[in-house]
C-alpha cells in the first residue's frame, strides 16, 4: 500500500520535472511553426513561412556554414590529437599518469569566460587575427578534455591480453593498433566526435571573444535577439536543437553497439577466470 502511494508521489514529481525541463523547448519548437508572428498563446495555426524566411536569409546561411566548418574542423582535429593522446595516457601507469592526466583535464574546470579572455590576449600577442581559425583553435582546447575522458574510459576497459595475443601472432605495434585496438574503439570514437561536434556547434562564450567580424549560429541568434524578439529565432533554435539531438542519437547508437559487443565478449562464463 505504502509502495503504491510512494510511486504515485514520485510519478507526479517525475512528470513535473520533465514538464519543467521540456516545456520551454516544446514551446520554442511549436512557435517556430506558427502562422502569425505572435510569440504567445493562443496558437493561430501551422505554417512554414518562418522556415522559408530563415533559410532564405543569406546572413543566416553564412552563420550556419561557419558553424558547420568550425564544428567539423574542431571535431576532426580533436579526433586525431585526442586519439593519440588517450592512447599514450592509457599506456601510462601510476603517478606519471595522474599528473599528465590532470593537465589534460584541467580545461574542463575552467570557466569559458576565462578561456575566451586568455585566448583573446594570447592570439593578439602572437598577432593571429581573429577568424574562424582562431575559433577552431579555441574550440579544440574547449572540447579536448571531453573527448579524452570518454576515450580513456573505454581504453582502460580493453583487455590488454588481446594486444599481447596479437603481438604474439606477429603483429608489430602499428598492426596491433589498427587490427585489434581500433576495431574495438571506433564506435566510441564516432560517439565522442559527435559530442565534440555538438559542443563546438553550440559554443557561444569562448567564440564571442575570439571570432572577430565573422558569425556562427549561436552568435547570429544572440545578435538577432539584441534587436527584437523575432519569430525566426524559434526556427533557428529548433534547427539547432534538431542538429544536436541528431548527433546525440548517432553517438548513443554507436555507444550501444560497442557496449553490446563488449558484453558479448566478456559475458560468456569461460572468459571470467
Amino acid at each position, binding site marked *: 500500500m505504502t509502495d503504491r502511494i510512494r510511486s504515485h508521489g514520485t510519478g507526479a514529481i517525475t512528470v513535473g520535472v520533465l514538464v519543467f525541463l521540456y516545456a520551454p523547448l516544446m514551446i520554442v519548437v511549436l512557435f517556430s511553426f506558427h502562422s502569425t508572428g505572435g510569440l504567445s498563446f493562443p496558437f493561430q495555426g501551422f505554417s512554414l513561412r518562418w522556415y522559408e524566411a530563415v533559410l532564405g536569409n543569406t546572413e543566416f546561411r553564412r552563420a550556419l556554414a561557419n558553424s558547420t566548418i568550425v564544428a567539423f574542423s574542431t571535431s576532426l582535429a580533436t579526433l586525431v590529437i585526442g586519439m593519440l593522446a588517450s592512447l599514450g595516457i592509457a599506456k601510462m601507469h601510476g603517478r606519471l599518469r595522474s599528473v599528465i592526466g590532470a593537465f589534460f583535464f584541467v580545461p574542463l574546470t575552467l570557466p569559458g569566460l576565462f578561456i575566451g579572455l586568455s585566448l583573446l590576449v594570447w592570439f593578439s600577442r602572437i598577432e593571429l587575427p581573429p577568424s574562424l581559425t582562431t575559433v577552431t583553435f579555441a574550440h579544440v582546447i574547449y572540447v579536448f578534455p571531453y573527448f579524452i575522458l570518454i576515450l580513456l574510459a573505454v581504453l582502460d576497459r580493453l583487455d590488454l591480453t588481446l594486444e599481447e595475443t596479437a*603481438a604474439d601472432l*606477429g*603483429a608489430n605495434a602499428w598492426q596491433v593498433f589498427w587490427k585489434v585496438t581500433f576495431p574495438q574503439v571506433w564506435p566510441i570514437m564516432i560517439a565522442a566526435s559527435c559530442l565534440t561536434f555538438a559542443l563546438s556547434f553550440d559554443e557561444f562564450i569562448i567564440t564571442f571573444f575570439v571570432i572577430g567580424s565573422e558569425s556562427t549560429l549561436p552568435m547570429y541568434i544572440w545578435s538577432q535577439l539584441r534587436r527584437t524578439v523575432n519569430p525566426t529565432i524559434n526556427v533557428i533554435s529548433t534547427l539547432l536543437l534538431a542538429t544536436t539531438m541528431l548527433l546525440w542519437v548517432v553517438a548513443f547508437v554507436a555507444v550501444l553497439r560497442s557496449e553490446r559487443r563488449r558484453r558479448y565478449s566478456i559475458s560468456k562464463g*569461460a*572468459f571470467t577466470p
Partner: protein
Amino acid sequence: MSRISVDGITQNFGSVRALDDVSLDVGDQEFITLLGPSGCGKTTLLRAIAGFIRPQSGSVTMNSIDITKKPAHRRSINMVFQRPTLFPHLNVEGNVAFGLKLESPRLSRQEIKQRVQEALALVRLDGYENRRAHELSGGQMQRVALARALVKRPSVLLLDEPLSALDLKIRLEMEGELRRVHRETKATFIYVTHDQREALALSDRIAVFENGRISQLGTPTEIYHQPANPFVARFVGDSNVIPIEIASRSFMLGNQRLAIDTDLDGAAWLVVRPEKVRILGAGVGIPAEVSDLAFRGTGFAYELRISGVDSVVKAESPAGGEPWSIGSSVNVEIEPADCLALVRT
C-alpha cells in the same frame, strides 16, 4: 629442430623475486610442464620465453641463437593464454587467419584459407568458420585460440594454464586433444599449470617450481615416486610427510619399529603416499584412530591419528564393503618398499 634453453634468468618485480637464477633446457618436440603454485614464477618464465618480458639477467636461446632481446612479434614462438582471448570483432576464421594475414605478402589468399581449414580440422572445429566468439562454448573458444596459434606452424608452442578456466569434463577432453595435437604437430610444447594431475597426465618432463626456483626436474614417474624434497612430495599427488628419526635403517612409527631402505641416519622426513597406507581391522600393525573420512568414488579417503605423530596420517582404501566409521580403532600397515626417506634439517 627446436630446442629452447634458458640460462640463469633472474627477474624481480619490485621487491619480489619472481625468478631466481633459473636455467632449463627443453628438447626438440618435448612436452615439458612448468608446475607450481600461483606466484612461483612459472608464468614469468613462460612470458620471458614468449618475449613479453625481457629478463633483468640471463638469456633465452633458441637453437643456439640468443633471442633474449628479440621482441615477441618476431619470435617463431606462439602462445595460448589462460583465457581464450579471441578478438571480439572477428569471427572464428578471422581469428585463426589473423597471424597468417600479417605474413600476407608471402601467402596467397588461397593458402591462408587452406591453412585455416587445416588448423580448424586439427582442433576439430571444421564448419565453425563463421561463428563469433560469443556463439562458442568455453572449450570451443580455447580450441580456436589453439588453432590460431598452431596455424602459424610455431616450432615452439607456449600454453599458459589453457584449461584452468574450463569445466572439469571439458578439461579432461581437452587434455586428450592436447596430447594428440602435440603428436601430430611435432612442435615443442611448454605448458604451465598449477594442476599436478594435468602435469602428470600430459608431460614428457615436469619442472616443479617453488619460490622462483626449479625445485625438481624429471619425468612424471620420477617426480611422483622419487620427490626430491617435502615440497614436491606434498605438491605432486597427495603425500604424508612425517618427521622421523632413522637409526640403523629403521624408525619408530606409533608403537612399531619399521624397516626402511635408505642410507640416511638421524632426522629425516618419511614420505608415503596415502594409497600405500593399508588399514587393517585388528591384529598386526600400528594402532590408529579414524578421525575423518570422505567418499571419493574410487575409494574412501581417511584421516588417521597415530600416537606420537603430530600431523594426521592420510590413507586411502578401495571402495567396497563398509568403511571404518569415525572414532573406530584400526591398525595400519606400511610396506618398507613404499617408504621414502628425505633429508630433514
